[in-house]
């Protein structure tokens, strides 16, 4: 059956939110159909949510490798393109290689981590979204999808666990 009904409820406390998440899970609402919105970061364990595999460290590592290779090219590669021998010195001194590759490796991590956040969070996304501004006032929002048959039961669960402002949120510009 199509899960085409979206509901949202707000909670004042993390305990109430965690109880609600547990109750929703028991009544058969899948983890993927529930999203928590909050003004401060709550670890997944506190709210009883599944741990998410994070790809940003891998993206950062990839950025480091790219930065490192660019650094090698700049210090070791560019002198080979137009060799200028000065005072009998080698074209590839190791200490400058260490400095430049270090800086560019760091730059690679920095830029890729930032881009990783944008990529993984689908930022920027300025379209209309389901949201409630009370989330930034300290409330915790539970946004969920369910079947039309489950609506009344879900509303009851939300209310029983201290939920308020229970409604079907419209997509609106943020």
């Amino acid at each position, binding site marked *: 059956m199509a899960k085409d009904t979206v509901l949202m409820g707000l909670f004042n406390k993390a305990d109430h939110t965690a109880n609600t998440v547990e109750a929703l899970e028991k009544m058969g609402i899948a983890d993927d159909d529930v*999203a*928590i*919105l*909050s*003004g*401060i*970061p*709550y*670890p*997944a364990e*506190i*709210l009883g*949510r599944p741990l*998410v595999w*994070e790809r*940003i*460290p891998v993206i*950062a590592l990839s950025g480091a490798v790219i930065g490192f290779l660019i650094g090698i090219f*700049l*210090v070791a590669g*560019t*002198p080979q*393109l*137009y060799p*200028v021998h000065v005072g009998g010195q080698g074209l590839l*001194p190791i200490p*400058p290689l260490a*400095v*430049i590759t*270090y*800086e*560019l490796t*760091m*730059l690679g*991590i*920095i*830029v890729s*981590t*930032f881009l*990783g*956040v*944008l990529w*993984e*969070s*689908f*930022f*920027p*996304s*300025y*379209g209309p*979204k389901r*949201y409630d*501004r009370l*989330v*930034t*006032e*300290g409330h915790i929002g539970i946004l969920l999808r369910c079947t039309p048959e489950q609506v009344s039961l879900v509303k009851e669960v939300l209310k029983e666990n201290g939920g308020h402002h229970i409604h079907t949120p419209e997509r609106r510009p*943020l």
Partner: protein
Amino acid sequence: MSKESRSAPRPAEPDQALALEMRPGILSDQLLLDPRPVGDMNRYIMEAMQRTGKGFWILVAILASLVLIGYGGAWGYQVRWGMGVAGIRRPVFWGLYIANFVFWIGISHSGTFISAVLRVFKAEFRRPITRGSEMMTTFSLIVAGLFPLIHLGRTWRFYWMIPYFNQRQLWPNFHSPLMWDMMAIFTYLTGSTLYLYLPLIPDMAMARNITTGWRKRVYGTLALGWRGSESEWHHLKTAIKIFAFVIMPVMFSVHTIVSWDFGMTLVEGWHSTIFGPYFVTGAIFSGVSAVITVLLIVRKTMKLDYFLRPEHFDALGKLILVFSFAWTYFWFAEFITEWYGGEPVISALIHMQARGPVAVLWYTMLFFNIVVPWSTLWNRRIRRSTTAMLLITIGINIGMYLERYIIVATFLTKGRMPFNWGIYNPSIVELLISIGALSLFALLYVVASRLIPLVPVWEVQEGQLSHSLRPIGRALVPSVVDLE
């Protein structure tokens, strides 16, 4: 302990009324134990940002005029007539511009140290002060980055430093410390700007939600569509953690490489192996002091007493005392080694500092960097006094500026060939540009303080959630749980 008290049931969750009863005053003293409704805290910050009276605009006008005089007037004059209008001439080719460059790079260490290092070590007092110090890092790097361009003389040739090949396939020389400098500063500026921006995204969303008009549009754009979902927080927290670990070694590298601009030369007094740690220590010393100065001014003018409390200046005061010890250690290690060697040119330089024309600057530096912090900052009452801390930290930065000036400008006056000795006096052009630089930093900060939430509200709220008072014996003791 009596049997009764041992067997007495222990209260599970003391409420605030009980806390006040047992240790009156503790709640109002510590920000993280004094939570207010989240909405009130948001509005508190936003109202402070939108308060722009007549005094604010007069200050902006004065600073903008000084920036215009410094950069538009004096720098423009130098570009028109050449480097001859500056005081630098044989044998002193590095003068006030490079001293300013080193000083402002040093100031930029404030944000990274306070935000990244204290975040990694989970020092909770950092929470309300990270944003203000990160802003200092970004703005001081912008100011610092202009000085090499000014010092170039032919500023329009700056693009020769950009790593790409010319028409003969010749690339810039990456073996030069000056090139390392550019790479390090670019990395640090990019890193610190993104490190400022990332934790700002949730606060931008908060600002978007409670403002209207052009502010709402600007904050909405900068918030990137943030809603505060679990995955958004998860990605953000991971990225902040990575940034905190990465930006620290970058911070150390930047000032170390700046010190190598000096250390890699064979100039007497500059060719030193400990210049790296000496410069880095001095940078953190002056940077943290500058953070205190700025936050004290911000606290007063923007009425942020709720967020910025004596406890924060107390903690930062201890930090600068430690860094004063460290700076003194490096300075003395460098000084005594040079002095003991008895090399003639070095002896002449030391004589110039101790008894010659530089003596006033040298003793002032030692007074502000050693005597003042050592004699005052051991005292808790002084560390918690806003007036005293303002004066002490301004003094430290005067001392650190003089240190930069002495190293850069006076060491070059006496080279290995005595017939080539000379003196250096900064010209009016150099002085005006230096004043313009200070004004540019202040202007950027003043304007940003009305556009960017100066306190990371969500970080404070997160800290308040993790702090509570726990009864141990007859006292309520602040306790913290790790939410990360």
